[in-house]
Structures are given as structure tokens and as C-alpha cells.
């Protein structure tokens, strides 16, 4: 089966530094794929590259994105505009900032249909109802400032999905929301993936969100995928030292309170200082001479589970 979305060997440069390097993955219809990592790992740039919405300072010099088998890199900007919002949509972290403050909820959601609100009103009302907005007949004529953050996020999801795109890119969609509202939005995304078969790429820094909703996950570090596979497998037995440490650094319900949390020594190198070889080597307890000299490529270490580590078998 053709994946809904496939990213091939993506490389993004800022100046001379490859801030995203060799990133590739595929997402099937109805599947939720999480890109997880800490600030600066390249997860959000990857999302913007998929939409072809990169800032001017970032240049893509390698790789391509295929939507349902169609290579998007050959499309003109005009053709790409017909793809965005119709076949592939994106939602953002700050729903209030992403919505137009001067336009009503209904007008913004109707935009995705290509028809004015007068004609699309019934479809917009149905969509608002589907994303769980109570009293859509009243909300449709309100402005974003009259809505809470959680409700604005529902409006953004409604406007992203009204044209029934095959792919939804969700960039930290719940980071600005409270936990009880986050739980509602995650339930909504899960339901949309199952019921509509939307393929979702979820960008997040929160391992709890990944555990809740992702079918598969790619853990990113310093612009590269460190490890990728089924969510259950990666949490049960991480095969990259970075993932293992990241998971051990989280306080958990089952821990002894005030016990020592694992720390990752040092800090993420700046793009201008990316080392040759493995970019995690400088902070890695398993690193040896080979790690500092040769870049480890992703390789299969268990069925469907890939790790970019020379010592994947030794990770505890």
C-alpha cells in the first residue's frame, strides 16, 4: 500500500550546518506518527519542510516529500497552494495566534472548502460539531477572542480537516493547553485518525503524549533520527542511548519520590559545532572512537525497530 505520506532523506541547511540531516519516514492512512525530541532537534523544521513552509533562512538541498505517492518537490508554489489545506493540513501550538482575529470562526473554517460561508454553512456546522464544539450555531459567528484556547484549537482542527485532507501535521497541538483540555484534544485526534483514516504526524516534546496517542515514533536528536519504531517497542526497550536516558530523566508515578533522575551530561551541540560521527557521542556513556569518527546510519535492530547507534545492542 502507498503510504499517505513519505519523507525521503530530507536535509535542511542553515548557513552551512545541516540542522535536519537524512530524515525519512512514512505514515500510513489512519496512523499517528510522533516526531519527538528536545528543543532544536529539528522536529518542527521537518514539519514545516513537509508543508513547504520553511523560513527563508532554511534551505532544503536534499530529499523529497511524497503525498500519496506524488512527489511534492516538482510542484510549483501555485500548485502547492492547492495541496495545502486540501490534501494536507497543519495545525500549530498557539491556536489564538494561528487564527485570524478579524475573521469569524465560520469564515475561517469555510476557507478550506473553497466556497463562501453562505454556501458552506451546513458543512461548517457539521465540522464544528464533529470536533466537539458545543453550540456550533452560536460559535460559528463568533470571533477567536470570544473563545478559550481549547476551543480555538478545535476551530483550527476543524478548518484543517474540513476539506478531508489525507494528512494532518500537528505541531505541538496541546503544548499551550491545560491537561484536562489536552486530554480532550488528544481524544479528538485519535478519533479522527480512526474514523476518517487521516494520517497524523504529531510533533511533540512530551513522552506522555507520545505514549498516549502515537502508533509509531521517531526520536530526533540534533537534526537526525536517533531511533524509530512502534511506540510500545521503543518505550519497552529503547535501542538508542539518547532515548534510554530521556525516558530515565522523567519523574514517574512508580518512582521513589526525590530519587535521583537520570541526567544527560553536557548540552546539545549548536549546529555550527556538530561533530563528525554520531552527534550524540559527546554526551553518550557508550561512545567510543568509532562513534566519534563514523556516522551511524539507521539500521534494523528488531522487526520494524531502527536505531542509529553503533552500540544499539548494548543499550540498557
Amino acid at each position, binding site marked *: 500500500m502507498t503510504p499517505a505520506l513519505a519523507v525521503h532523506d530530507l536535509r535542511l541547511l542553515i548557513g552551512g550546518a545541516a540542522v535536519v540531516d537524512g530524515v525519512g519516514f512514512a505514515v500510513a492512512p489512519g496512523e499517528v506518527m510522533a516526531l519527538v525530541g528536545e528543543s532544536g532537534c529539528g522536529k518542527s523544521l521537518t514539519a514545516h519542510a513537509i508543508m513547504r513552509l520553511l523560513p527563508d533562512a532554511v534551505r532544503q538541498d536534499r530529499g523529497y516529500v511524497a503525498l500519496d505517492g506524488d512527489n511534492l518537490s516538482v510542484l510549483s508554489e501555485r500548485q502547492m497552494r492547492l495541496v495545502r489545506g486540501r490534501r494536507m493540513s497543519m495545525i500549530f501550538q498557539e491556536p489564538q495566534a494561528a487564527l485570524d482575529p478579524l475573521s469569524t470562526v465560520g469564515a475561517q473554517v469555510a476557507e478550506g472548502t473553497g466556497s463562501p460561508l453562505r454556501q458552506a454553512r451546513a458543512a461548517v456546522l457539521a465540522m464544528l460539531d464533529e470536533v466537539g464544539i458545543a453550540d456550533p450555531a452560536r460559535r460559528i459567528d463568533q470571533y477567536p477572542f470570544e473563545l478559550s484556547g481549547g476551543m480555538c484549537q478545535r476551530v483550527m482542527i476543524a478548518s484543517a480537516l474540513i476539506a478531508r485532507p489525507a494528512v494532518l501535521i500537528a505541531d505541538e497541538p496541546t503544548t499551550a493547553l491545560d*491537561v484536562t483540555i489536552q486530554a480532550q484534544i488528544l481524544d479528538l485526534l485519535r478519533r479522527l485518525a480512526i474514523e476518517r483514516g487521516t494520517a497524523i504526524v504529531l510533533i511533540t516534546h512530551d513522552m506522555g503524549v507520545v505514549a*498516549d496517542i502515537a502508533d509509531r515514533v521517531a526520536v530526533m536528536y540534533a537534526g537526525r533520527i536517533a531511533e524509530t519504531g512502534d511506540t510500545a517497542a521503543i518505550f519497552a526497550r529503547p535501542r538508542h542511548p539518547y532515548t534510554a536516558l530521556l525516558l530515565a530523566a522523567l519523574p514517574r508515578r512508580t518512582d521513589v519520590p526525590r530519587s535521583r533522575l537520570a541526567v544527560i551530561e553536557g548540552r546539545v551541540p549548536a549546529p555550527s559545532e556538530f561533530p563528525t560521527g554520531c552527534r550524540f557521542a559527546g554526551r553518550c556513556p557508550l561512545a567510543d572512537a568509532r562513534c566519534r569518527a563514523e556516522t551511524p546510519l539507521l539500521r534494523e535492530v528488531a522487526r520494524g525497530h531502527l536505531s542509529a547507534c553503533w552500540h544499539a545492542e548494548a543499550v540498557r
Partner: protein
Amino acid sequence: MSGAPALRVTDLAVHYPARNGPPVRAVDGISFALEAHETLGLVGESGCGKSTVARAIVGLQTVTHGSVMVDGTEIVGAGRAALRAARAGMQMVFQDPVTSLNPRMTVGAAVGEPLLVRGLARGAALRERVALLLTECGLRPEDAARYPHQFSGGQRQRIVIARALALRPALLVCDEPVSALDVSVRAQILNLLVDLQRAHGMACLFVSHDLAVVRHVCDRVAVMYLGHLAELAPRDALFSAPRHPYTRALLAAVPEPDPVAQRAKPRVPLVGEIPSPARMPSGCRFHTRCPMAQPVCRETEPAWREVGASMVACHFPNE
């Protein structure tokens, strides 16, 4: 002062006047006490009033009524001199270490400033104290000569903590101290806070929206909803036997970083949104979202009462 708790908050209220209509009751009559050596977590969602409580305690917020006693000294209505004296015993750490530090001041000057302005140390003695504080917070003595922008977010939060500890406060108020930090850095700062409290035994009020972090560092936890305390309980009681339906919903909503446990969890999503504190619901303020609400909950505000080891404001707590 002996005998007095490190912090006693009694019937604290902060109301903001509204242009039209009744005042916004951001904090609406809450009481708790904090002993020396103890860490109390204050949790709740945005707008519940938890940060306002923190600011009121350190005297950065005008209080409508109620009392805040820090180490036996009243903060509410205290004059400048009294407040200045009391502030030596309490310090605050904020969420954003970038805006908490003066970009034009060296790290050494920032950390040493509390000692200098209070005339406690100067010259070589001051430099020595600063070096000690930096070392204690995981930085190097040489870092005193550098500027905040030369440090990462986690290191800047270490600088802020070093400055807060300079006067050896009896009370440390931390408002979301690790919320702006990445996971791996957050673990470093949490380890540091745990170590420092072990070493110095100050009381700590830890304001956070992150329940996993609160469970990790706190002895007791207070849960706020719309300006009121819903529940206050020892850590283990709160996490293993939450008595207030809001506490239960909050705990259920936090996604666990464990796919097996997380997906097996019963889903009890709270419906609806937090009401505006300008239009406070009648009776129990949680009744509009409560899955257990009865007619009495709409009419009568529940009393703050003891149930087992916990204090709870609910007509139908889990007993």
C-alpha cells in the same frame, strides 16, 4: 522564630476590580501552613490562581484580605521596612530564567547582589561567598565573570537559584521553576532542588501544573480550582487515593510516559472548560464540570473539611 510555621496563609483573597460587574475573584479565601524542611506543591490549571498565591506570599501582589505569616511575620499590610526585613527570609524562583536575570549584570554581580545590598559581605569575602554558591548550584567559580546570555536555559536557572539561596532563606517560593526547560535539563534542576533542600532544610512552596514533577519533589500537595483549594493532602494520599473529583480528573488527564499503563487507564475526560473567575458558578465552583454533581452542589458551597489524612472541599468526597 521558634514554634511558628515557616509559612501560614489564612483566608487569603486577591480580587481584581472589573470595569463592569463584580470583581474577578482570582484567589478567594485559601488557608494552609508550611513547616520548615517541608515542600508543598500547589497545582492547578491556568487561571486557577496558583501564581497569584505565590506572588501574594512574597509581597509582590496586593492582597484583598487575609493573612500571610512568613516565619511569624505578617506580610499583608507590612510597611516597606518590615517587608524588606521579611524578604531576607523568603526568595522566589520564576519560570523564565531569561527574564529573571539582568542581561547587563555579570553572574557574580547578580548572585552577590543580595549579600551586597544587605551589607553582609563585600570585596574578597563576597567573591568567596559567590564562588561557593555557584559551586553549590553546579556552576564553576569562573562563571561569575560571565554574562547570562553566555549560558543555556538550564544553567541560567541554576544562576537564579544560586541568587535565591544567597541569603539562606527559610522559605523558597518556586513558580513553575522547570516548566520552560527540556526534559534532560529539567531532571538536572530537579535533582539540584532536592539536594539543596536536603542540605539547607528550607521550606519550599512549589507551584506547578506538572503533577509528575510535583509528586517527585513534594511532601504535601494542594490542588487549586478557580481560586479555591479543592484538596490538600500528603503526597501518597493524594496520588493513590484522591478524594476530590477534580483531583481524580486531573490525575487521569496527565498522560503517563508508558504506553501500556497509559492506554489501560480508564478515560474520564472532564467535559467543558474552566469557567471565568468573573462569573463564578454558584455552590461548588467545580459543579459545572463535575461528573458526580448533585443538586446540593449547585446550591451550597462545600465546607473545607478533614477526610482521613486529607483536607477536601466536596459534598461527596471519596471516603
